[in-house]
């Protein structure tokens, strides 16, 4: 295929290389917007309306947010994944290396957005959960902290992770030809943090009544957090991909050939 491509493309048609950073920057701005707004909302509504789950105002200010975000997230998940699948490239066996490289770079830039979303779930909102529950008496599974940690931050990176996975298997031949186990782990491991909430809530309801963060009922999150180490596997596969791809679009002097 590469040979065919070289034959077809005229030397004067070579466009200079440019990174397309727009989707990444927009993605990060949107994430900062969403997570910043959520943090502001917590500051505004948590102490006044979030201490007592039996209070009707709790329903107004917190449970409505919960149901709203759940509905939006389910819609977004199927929209993103569905769109990527429906608009898939049906001729990956006939893809020009230059387009392939552009796609790969875009995909990698969006991995930055995925990692950024994971930061909010794994670090920012996760540790904030400690301070909230160690400071107030927990009386529901849907606390002002959980509503944004489990039911917003986690779905956000799950949506992004699955979208990236589907982008890879529908637009990047290297990842479409065979499924990368590392990539599956990098997407599905963090995804499993959400179902682990079941263990967490069971533990808080029936097992350990007190609040310290290192309780064994939290270790499900730890286990699935480890899966992000498999990013190194994805990185190695990207290396192999680059070694396969770059020589098709550049010569030994580093100039673009297609």
């Amino acid at each position: 295929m590469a040979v065919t491509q070289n034959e077809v493309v005229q030397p004067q048609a070579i466009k200079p290389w440019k990174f397309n950073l727009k989707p990444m920057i927009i993605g990060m701005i949107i994430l900062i917007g969403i997570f910043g707004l959520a943090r502001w909302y917590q500051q505004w509504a948590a102490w006044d309306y979030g201490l007592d789950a039996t209070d009707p105002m709790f329903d107004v200010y917190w449970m409505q947010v919960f149901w709203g975000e759940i509905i939006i997230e389910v819609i977004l998940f199927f929209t993103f994944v569905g769109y990527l699948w429906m608009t898939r490239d049906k001729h990956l066996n006939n893809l020009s290396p230059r387009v392939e490289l552009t796609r790969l770079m875009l995909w990698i830039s969006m991995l930055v957005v995925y990692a950024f979303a994971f930061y909010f779930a794994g670090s920012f909102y996760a540790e904030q959960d400690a301070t909230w529950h160690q400071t107030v008496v927990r009386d529901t599974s849907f606390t002002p902290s959980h509503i944004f940690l489990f039911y917003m931050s986690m779905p956000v990176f799950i949506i992004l992770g699955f979208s990236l996975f589907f982008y890879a298997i529908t637009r990047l031949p290297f990842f479409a030809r065979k499924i990368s186990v590392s990539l599956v782990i990098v997407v599905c491991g963090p995804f499993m943090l959400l179902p682990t909430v079941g263990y967490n809530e069971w533990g808080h309801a029936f097992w350990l009544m007190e609040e310290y963060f290192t309780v064994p009922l939290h270790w499900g999150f730890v286990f699935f957090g480890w899966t992000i180490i498999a990013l190194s596997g994805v990185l190695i596969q990207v290396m192999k991909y680059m070694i396969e791809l770059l020589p098709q679009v550049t010569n030994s002097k580093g100039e673009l050939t297609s």
Partner: protein
Amino acid sequence: MISSKKKLPAMRILLTKAIFTMVLMCIAGTAFAHGERNQEPFLRMKTLHWYDMQWSVANDATVQVNDEVTMTGKVHFFSRWPEIISWPDTVFLGNATPGPVFVRKETYLNGVPMIQSTAVEPGRVYDFKVILKARIPGRHHVHPMFNVKSAGGLVGPGIWVNVAGDADDFVYSITTRTGVVIDNLGTYGVENVVKWHLIWAGFAVFWLIWWFRRPLIIQRYLLVKQGNWKELITNNDRKLAVLLLVSIITLIIYANDITREAYPRTIPLQGSKSEVDPSPDLNDGRVVVKNLLAEYYLPGRTVLIKAQVTNNAKSAIQLGEFTAANLRFINKSVPAAVKGVQDGYPEELMANDTLGVSDPSPIQPGETRVFMIEATDAAWETERLSSLLNDPDSSYGALLFFYTEEGERIVSEIYGQILPTFFD
């Protein structure tokens, strides 16, 4: 005419709805509880009972940042302590507030300082005192609280306290045993912490930039594959590594040396337990109460108890109060009981109606009497105590306050199964 007649009830309904919504907004906009309403009633009713609560400020009073608020009262640890909760041999007295909006200045149980945890005896009463110091402005609900090991927080009745002023004006100064004056406990030592974090972050950033300034990924991957380690890790890298290793170790040694000089006398975290004796048992068998039958009548939000009371005291007694999980039902025909209600006690925890007693006449010394107690209030619902009908243990616990003719109070426990009545 007909149409206007029809309109009137419709408008009335609308108006009623509007008023109801406004009332709901007013009540609900203020979070009375700190999550305790979702604790199972059978546990709340058979663990702690708080009474004789006094606050140094009125309900909804305004204090300034740095002002003190004192809570005092009695706390009764129920003798039929639920089996599924650990025995209260490790408990901690504190305050349920929205986080550290107040600083906990002093706490005492029967006069013993409660800076550490302690053990208590079920069936006994303790006097507690909690002194708080206002720190963060806002409208805060302030309760006393006991943390009980393996059970979590058990919250007492709370009042509203408004804190006015500026949080930046808050100071909490202490003097150490070594004579050092700490101007503000909240900022003490922070500068030193930040300084050392920055110094070490400087090392890390330097080391990372040292590597990141070179081509990183593709080149190095290929060089590794080539086995070209001389180019991957140069002699300069090695020299720098040795220099950094020596610097880090030297700096750690130096830092510890100056710390030893600056703080020659330190002690580890203190992990002991306080010892406290309970107050004398003032009942001491003078009034013996037995639960014969208890029912929760759902449509009327009423608890009906058939009780047998034996008066072994020297004078006649009358039942003046029934209290469970901070809810108080007062027999308004007993003056001493009415007098026992402190000003500013949270209204939502006081029953509007009088406590019903089927035979209100005084129980004479030596007499054993069976009578009905009727405690009715919507608070059974709002405080979610009626949810005991959904719990795996349909039992209840409460305190009965009897008053002698001389006005002396004798406190008794009552406990037993409670049966639901679902229909009229």
